């Protein structure tokens, strides 16, 4: 989650891509994809994105969200990761490792992620086979997408 401001160098000709920063929304034992409705979930997660995040999410999150911690105001997707803990070598206690946010976010921001939407992968341009669509509606249960040919989710 350590973020850096580096231009993404693609070997294939660059035709499209998206990179944006999100600050932390919350850190919770919730996972609406793997354990929908279970509160608390089995694992701790660091969550960014739209304010419609909930233990169980159904339908189109874009219809319910009104704001987001991400730079893109057009989308209310959520993204979450596992939380890393450091185990003290002598007393065995666990300490949550702080997350360094993207430097493009406002000064004083603590925690967050950098999100990339790329072509087929970092080195292959699959746009002809899989055209990128900006923010297609994503409906839970994840990750059904109702836009054929889309390669975002």
């Amino acid at each position: 989650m350590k973020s850096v401001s580096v231009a993404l160098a693609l070997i294939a000709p660059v035709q499209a891509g998206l990179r944006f920063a999100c600050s932390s929304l919350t850190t919770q034992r919730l996972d609406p994809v793997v354990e929908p409705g279970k509160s608390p979930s089995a694992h701790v997660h660091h969550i960014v994105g739209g304010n419609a995040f909930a233990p169980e999410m159904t339908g189109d999150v874009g219809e319910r969200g009104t704001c987001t911690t991400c730079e893109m105001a057009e989308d209310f997707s959520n993204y979450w990761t596992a939380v890393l803990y450091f185990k003290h070598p002598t007393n065995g206690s666990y300490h949550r490792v702080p997350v360094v946010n993207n430097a493009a976010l406002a000064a004083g921001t603590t925690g967050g992620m950098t999100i990339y939407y790329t072509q087929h992968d970092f080195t292959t341009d699959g746009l002809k086979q899989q055209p990128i669509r900006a923010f297609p509606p994503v409906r839970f249960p994840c990750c059904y997408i109702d836009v054929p040919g889309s390669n975002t989710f």
Partner: protein
Amino acid sequence: MTVGSPTTSSLAEAKGHIGLRYNCLKTTLNRGPEMVDFPDRPCEGGIFAVHHFPALVAHLP
């Protein structure tokens, strides 16, 4: 869409989750090599955790 698995406990298993990798940052510009496992030494610039989701739509098992 998910990547990795919380039950992973061996390097061999971790290699199978190709979307989850780590970089031991020397600086914010020098990421060093991409690694399957956590760094085994302090990383001056922090640990860069990459969650590379597949491009194709997939349903959870």
